[in-house]
């Protein structure tokens, strides 16, 4: 069995899922090889061209990770006679990147087109979506519902749970804990602007702004988006209430979760949203808006608001920050939900069951 993905980058959701899948399949007795087009992000060339011939044969089974448009991947799929399972990580809609970065918008459009084409390709034997939301959107594009399965992405959650927090950050942030944390790359679909508006509304209703701590990778090509966030912070007078931390290592991430009173998620598009699982595992209560896969990743009785105004989300955040009993119940429920649905062995079983019925 072969696992094929466009790029293998450290601490990337697709890469973690592919590596985890390799481990799960190997443990289950499969012979597994992993082929990434690129390793490390900025090295030249496409390594998929160097993959051996056997992955093209009819007897082979290929799990193809769909996370972006990928020319070499398209060429591979056209050539191969292997049975193909599409591992769908969902594609962020290109419209989010219009006016932000042409290259990202073009890549997203290419990914959308590829997803549409694969959803209607009869040679795809199975479609393994990472969430019910992704599954529904794939069937909406034309994928055969009988071929669609759902399994959460594999994520090394235990590494974060067992990691020691960065002590310097832990000390500093214990003195200035975040009222609301968000973890996710700085991209236009992640809802950062909404969080800033909510902070401004919170200040109007409760007399002070919550301290927002925003952690996540920043791609310099999205500088226009980042500049807009900075401008919005200034416009709303939130200068000292918003901390933009950028990309962090595991120890700093752990410190960020441990020193936050709540996790606020206003993402406009998520294929799964791993930070919600991390927050659940580490006991940070979540307040979220119902977009994309957010609701299906959270427990059924989580604080998820549908069609809510900024005032309402601000009030929800205030409730969670100031009602210990509510916070404890949300934490317990989310932790139980994570254990029941996203623990490594549970997801491994989902993936094996899905692949064995493909």
């Amino acid at each position: 069995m072969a696992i094929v993905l466009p790029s293998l980058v450290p601490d990337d959701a697709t890469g973690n899922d592919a590596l985890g899948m390799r481990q799960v399949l190997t443990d289950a007795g499969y012979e597994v090889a992993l082929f990434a087009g690129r390793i490390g992000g900025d090295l030249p060339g496409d390594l998929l061209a160097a993959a051996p011939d056997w992955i093209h044969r009819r007897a082979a089974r290929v799990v193809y990770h769909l996370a972006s448009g990928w020319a070499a991947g398209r060429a591979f799929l056209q050539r191969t006679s292997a049975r193909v399972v599409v591992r769908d990580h969902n594609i962020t809609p290109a419209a989010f990147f219009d006016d932000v970065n042409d290259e990202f918008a073009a890549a997203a459009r290419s990914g959308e087109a590829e997803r549409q084409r694969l959803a209607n390709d009869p040679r795809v034997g199975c479609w393994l979506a990472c969430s019910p939301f992704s599954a529904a959107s794939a069937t909406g594009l034309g994928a055969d519902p009988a071929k669609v399965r759902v399994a959460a992405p594999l994520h090394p959650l235990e590494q974060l749970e067992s990691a020691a927090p960065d002590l310097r950050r832990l000390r500093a942030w214990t003195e200035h804990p975040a009222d609301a944390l968000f973890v996710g790359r700085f991209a236009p679909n992640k809802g950062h602007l909404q969080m800033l508006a909510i902070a401004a509304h919170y200040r109007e209703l409760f007399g002070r702004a919550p301290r927002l701590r925003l952690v996540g990778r920043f791609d310099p090509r999205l500088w226009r988006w980042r500049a807009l966030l900075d401008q919005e912070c200034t416009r709303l007078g939130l200068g000292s209430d918003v901390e933009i931390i950028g990309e962090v290592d595991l120890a700093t991430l752990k410190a960020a979760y441990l020193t936050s009173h709540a996790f606020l998620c206003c993402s406009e598009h998520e294929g799964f949203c791993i930070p919600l699982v991390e927050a659940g595992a580490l006991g940070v209560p979540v307040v979220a808006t119902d977009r994309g896969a957010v609701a299906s990743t959270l427990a059924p009785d989580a604080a998820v608001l549908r069609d809510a105004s900024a005032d309402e989300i601000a009030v929800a955040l205030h409730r969670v920050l100031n009602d210990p009993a509510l916070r404890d119940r949300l934490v317990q429920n989310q932790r139980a939900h994570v254990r029941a649905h996203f623990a490594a062995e549970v997801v491994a079983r989902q993936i094996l069951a899905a692949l064995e019925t493909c």
Partner: protein
Amino acid sequence: MADDAVDIEALIAEIREEARALRARAGPGNVAPFGDRAARLRALAQPLASEVAPSAAAASDRALERMRASADLPSAPLDSHRALLGHTVALMKRILRRVLSPFFDQQARFNVAGIDALANLARRLDTLEDALARHRATGGDPEPCFDYAAFEAIFRGSRESLRAAQASYLDLFPDAASGPVLDLGCGPGVFLELLRESGVPGFGVDRCNPATTQAALAGLDVRTGDFFETLDHCPAQSLGGIVAFQVVEHLSLPALQRLLRLARQRLRPGGVLVLESVNLASLITHARGWTIDPTHAQPVHPLTLRFLVEQAGFSTIELRYSGAVEAETRLEPDPAGGAAARNVERLNRIVFGPQDYAIVARA
């Protein structure tokens, strides 16, 4: 319902009611709406235009006010005498223009030359003041001089190897119409020679050294001087290409940003910018090209340069890698295959990757 379950519907209903009550108490709210996202993003792409326009309008209003005040005309009747005097006035204007034009042109040339001379003097004064400050800081000892030309002659590689490496960029300048190409830091003029052989017009600029003299004697258009002055003197949108091989790592960040801004202005639409530098993502360069040259000012990671180039307004940016490490230096693959072979391949990629990269961008 279990004790620890949350009645989420009831909670959300409470939250909505509380939000309504709090908003009624707090008043209509002062958080101004975000506005049009696309328009705000586009405005970020042109900060100067949006900042300059209002101030220019205000300055224009102030100038009008001054004119009105000095002319003292607000109460004067504004009757036109065009019908009576118009033809005579127009004739007199034409005669005066013909008589005075040579004097006006001469005056304009004199003004420009005077401004240039003052600017040159200011630059020379800055240089002398810097040198004096350094001289004082070192206790009056003369600064040691580093002979870069001699250094480069030994370490930059043979003319043949440079020709082979730089020939890979010729595809960007397919014919004479793709010129003229300005080579910043042209050294011995290798790329200018390649351009000439392809029939593409080009000229270069570098400090005065034996290599540039030799290039000039070989009939190449090589000028000595400062990059920024050379770019300053090029008319806007007059160049088809600008190339700079192994130059950007010698510049400070402000100087690099200034270079990119000027390059963007001097290239015509579709003109090509090529900036080649040391690929620090390949670890062997830290033991070779990067550390061997003591005049390198700061490392410029490929993605950093790409960001700066994009910020300067260039589009369709491409990264090209070159300078493969020779086979005898790379780790030998394990013929047995398996994990060892894969690890060797991985190490080769990280440690012995391409030693140079180039940003290729279009204006």
